[in-house]
């Protein structure tokens, strides 16, 4: 639907965000909410430039960025088409390892270790997180980038207590899936994970790693993972690329149970 597509792409002239970034974000948004499907043709740059009353260069720049991020491709005919397929919510409301979730999406998963070290947390930090303060204050910190088909998807930092994962700092290489590793070496498994979700602006460092512009919006999830003994075994914080999304389904019955007043005026 190339003609529809032309009407969809608009820009906000009062915004401080450059036009090419706006076009890029706008198209990306439509691809992600499936307004533009896999193989949908985008308007030709001169066509869009004319409709928006901006230079063609800006449009080409936006398209180039989308190509770099693998959202679109330029075919031999010169036509730009959507090349992206959907990221599902596998990461989110199931306790699936991120690594496995990426392969479920049909992408080849890989992990790049950005940083790993043993750190000392203060008593306040330990108590604020909820780790056992009577134990050693040494923690294994890892900061890793999860990729699908070599494109960044999620940056995940973990704090693992050394009193549970003894000597993990000496054997853990950094690019192996964490869940499988702790199952194999420590026979431990996540039983419950408590997550706190926020929308945040990415700082420069994280933006660079995730291949996003600084200040791009990202879903931040702070996770506390408990084992079968209700012990906090892992404290982590993830930031995802701006194109990431997840879905929820809330049934009416659950809504009625939680808030009967919405549906029952006779009471």
């Amino acid at each position: 639907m190339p003609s529809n597509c032309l009407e969809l792409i608009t820009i906000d002239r009062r915004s401080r965000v450059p036009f090419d970034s706006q076009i890029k974000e706008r198209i990306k948004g439509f691809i992600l909410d499936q307004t533009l499907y896999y193989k949908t043709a985008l308007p030709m740059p001169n066509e869009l430039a004319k409709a928006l009353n901006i230079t063609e260069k800006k449009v080409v720049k936006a398209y180039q960025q989308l190509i770099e991020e693998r959202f679109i491709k330029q075919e031999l005919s010169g036509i730009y088409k959507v090349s992206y397929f959907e990221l599902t919510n596998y990461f989110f409301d199931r306790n699936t390892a991120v690594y496995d979730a990426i392969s479920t999406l049909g992408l080849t998963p890989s992990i790049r270790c950005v940083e790993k070290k043993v750190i000392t947390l203060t008593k306040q930090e330990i108590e604020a997180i909820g780790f056992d303060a009577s134990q050693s204050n040494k923690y294994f910190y890892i900061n890793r980038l999860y990729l699908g088909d070599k494109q960044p998807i999620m940056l995940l930092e973990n704090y693992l207590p050394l009193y549970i994962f003894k000597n993990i700092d000496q054997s853990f290489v950094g690019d192996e899936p964490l869940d499988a590793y702790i199952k194999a070496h420590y026979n431990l498994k996540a039983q419950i994970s408590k997550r706190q979700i926020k929308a945040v602006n990415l700082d420069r460092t994280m933006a660079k790693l995730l291949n996003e512009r600084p200040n791009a919006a990202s879903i931040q999830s702070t996770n506390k993972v408990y084992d079968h003994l209700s012990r906090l075994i892992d404290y982590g914080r993830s930031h995802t690329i701006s194109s990431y999304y997840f879905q929820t389904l809330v049934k009416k019955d659950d809504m009625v149970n939680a808030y009967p007043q919405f549906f029952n005026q006779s009471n």
Partner: protein
Amino acid sequence: MMEYIQINKLLTTSIYKQIAASITQAIDRGDLKYNDKLPTEKEICQAFSISQTAVKMAYEKLINEEKIKRIKGKGTYVTNRDVYQGNLHNFYELELLEDKVTPKYNQKIVMFDKKTKDYGAYRELKIDKKEPTFQIIRVIRSGQNPVLLQKIFFPHKYFKNFEKQYQSFSNLFTFIEQTCNYKIAHLHSTFSAINASASEALLLRLEPDDALHYVRTKIVDKKGNIIAYIYNYFPGDFTEFEVIVHAI
């Protein structure tokens, strides 16, 4: 302009504490709102003939308590703002504004419209863009602070009497179920993070480009029709969703 600051020099309570307390009270009362500009230190010390140190100390106390903040070259601003904390699956609880016993939230309807140019909404509602669709834009607030900006779309084909009924709109679910006689089956929502546009920032009292939770919700009725579609915008800095995930 600074009548909310009260100083009684006859009291033994130190001046700086009195200034801090009166500003705190003004914030709690809602006289001072998020993003309101406070007088400069100089203005206060001249108005009350007191030392600048006292004002400085008062402001520092409030900055430490995260009630106000200094922006270099601009001034001092009220920053305290409630963070909405809710369960991810229950975010619709913000509709509690109709709860007369404990009215947690209030709403401001920004606009009623009988047409929309939002093609994304047409697509999600699975209707042709020539079909008329009503739109409500509202801000749900806690006190004075915006908690949620909503754009709600009602297709004419499901809400034929909207123009007669919309004036009774206040609670979304009550409106759909009681006023318009639809039976809701479920809400299907897609969560992502976006940067605020100029107009979203304005309505949510944020800066453009600040992060927002962007939640698109389809309301599906018992017959399986998508009868309404909503864009929800939550201010990122002031919203936290919780969720508990169990092992499979």
